């Protein structure tokens, strides 16, 4: 199902783990790793016409310096429709704060909220 997955996370190790897990789950998947939310927005912006370059799934971390996950979601709302239609967002976080989960659920384009650490079982669930 998934041909292209984008992972947005400021933590290098988490990015690495995500990439390895994703590859394990499906070898052919194309994984894009971005360590800043701003960069991710920029990427989506410039590729808004190129549907093949857009990811099917975005794994988004909440706690990031600069622009955090929620700020990204607010800015994401301003992206062109075709981007939003293609990408499905799943939020990843270590936060067990109920408020974070409820806040995430308010965004209609956020499909799931998953606790880190990511694991194969969780991936199976998601995809």
């Amino acid at each position, binding site marked *: 199902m998934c041909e292209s997955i984008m992972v947005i996370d400021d*933590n290098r*190790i*988490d990015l690495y*783990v*995500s990439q*390895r*897990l994703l590859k*394990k789950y499906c070898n052919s998947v194309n994984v894009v790793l971005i360590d800043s939310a701003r960069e991710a927005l920029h990427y989506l912006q410039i590729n808004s016409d190129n549907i093949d370059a857009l990811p099917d799934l975005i794994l988004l971390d909440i*706690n990031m310096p600069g622009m955090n996950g929620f700020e990204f979601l607010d800015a994401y709302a301003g992206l062109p429709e075709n981007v939003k239609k293609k990408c499905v967002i799943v939020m990843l976080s*270590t*936060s*067990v*704060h*109920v408020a974070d989960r409820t806040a995430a659920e308010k965004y209609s384009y956020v499909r799931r909220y998953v*606790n*880190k*650490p*990511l*694991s*194969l*079982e969780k991936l199976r669930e998601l995809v």
Partner: protein
Amino acid sequence: MNKLLERQIAKHQVDPEGLSPELRSLLETIDHSYNHFEKDRVLLERSIDISSRELQEINASLKRENEEGTRALYEQLKESLRLINQEDEQVIYEHPDYKALSELIESLKKETQKRKIAELELQHSEYRFRSLIENASDAVIIVNEQLEVIYASDSLQRVIGYTPGEVMGLNCFSELHPEDVQKMEHSLQEVLRNPGKTIRGEYRRKNRGEVYVWLESSATNLIHVAPVGGIVVNLRDISDRKKAESALKAFNEELRKSNSELDRFVYSVSHDLRAPLASMLGVISLIESEEIDDSIREEIDLLKQSINRLDGFITDILNYSRNTRLEVKPRKICLKKMLTEITDNLQYMTGEYEKVEVELEVDARATFHSDPTRLRVVFNNLISNAIRYCDPTKTQCRVKLRVSVDEHEARIILADNGIGIEAENQSRIFDMFYRVSNKSIGSGLGLYIVKETLDKLNGSIQMKSTYAKGSVFLITLPNSNNNKT
């Protein structure tokens, strides 16, 4: 011949000798009559004289009698008055005429005494009240319907610096702080509308030194009560109290701010502590998915256990800190939904889906209101314990949840067939950092936090357990839907 007749004859020049015998006889008759009249007259005069003298005598004697009687009476009355004013002598007149008088005097004496005592008491009373009013730290003023001051106690000077003389006749609302004018006008209307009722108010007024002071007034409308005829107002200087109030408010605000900062700090710290742990678990998960030796797999598992332990401990500390500090915020809660979420999540996270069978029964007769965050902490801890301490020797590990809600409280029974708790340890399981054995995975804070949290919510927890058979926890929680605190 009668002298008078003689004179009269001579006057008229009548010669008796030349008269006829008949005229001469007439003259003789007249002469006799004259003499008779003369005699009668003398007799009459004498008798009048006698009568007059007699009357005089009678008059004099009457007068004398009168004077004596009056003086006697006068003396009596004087004496009586003297006796009335004399408290100790009792007055008894023996004479029957005077008996009534003596009774009258006795009763007059008693009345006078009573009146004297009453007057004295009134004087004392007035003095007492006056000294109360004058020496009290509060000021008392009376104003008429036009709000003019008709009386002010000396203590007014202590309160606003003006003597009674300086404010007499002035409008009592003069020099009010502009911000307080409207509310005091309302207050005044209330006072006028409710005679006899004491209405309180707080306002600022300029004192003699041109400084605004905070006053508390208690006003009672006694306009229609004759001796008073006005509104009685008690004024108290509450500047100190106001200062204390605003200091308290400021302090509370600071406390709230610092609490909030502390909370953010704790949250931030705990998050920064847990993020690397999550990363570590991620890497471990990766390793576990590789083809590795069994011994390495075991070692990796030990690593995982330690990390989970640390992570659990940090979570516990965070929960403990938030429970102590955060306000209880009641909200509508669906217990069925919450418990299902928590159970699913726990089973998912620990991978214990098949291991433990969870049964949930809910009987809700009313909507339930309580603090959701805290409840989650309680249930998470209890259910994760039940899952963790299940007994692998039994055919099927079971956890039963029975919930009943009515308008006063919610009762949750959590029963498992896990390994149970030994009798001698049961009393200590809610202690801070108490763990049953070194092999225990938990931090020892879990049940302690459960108890603290339930205390904060005015709930309770009871436990029954049999070693190797299982444990039952009974939790009661008040339903906050009636009293929003």
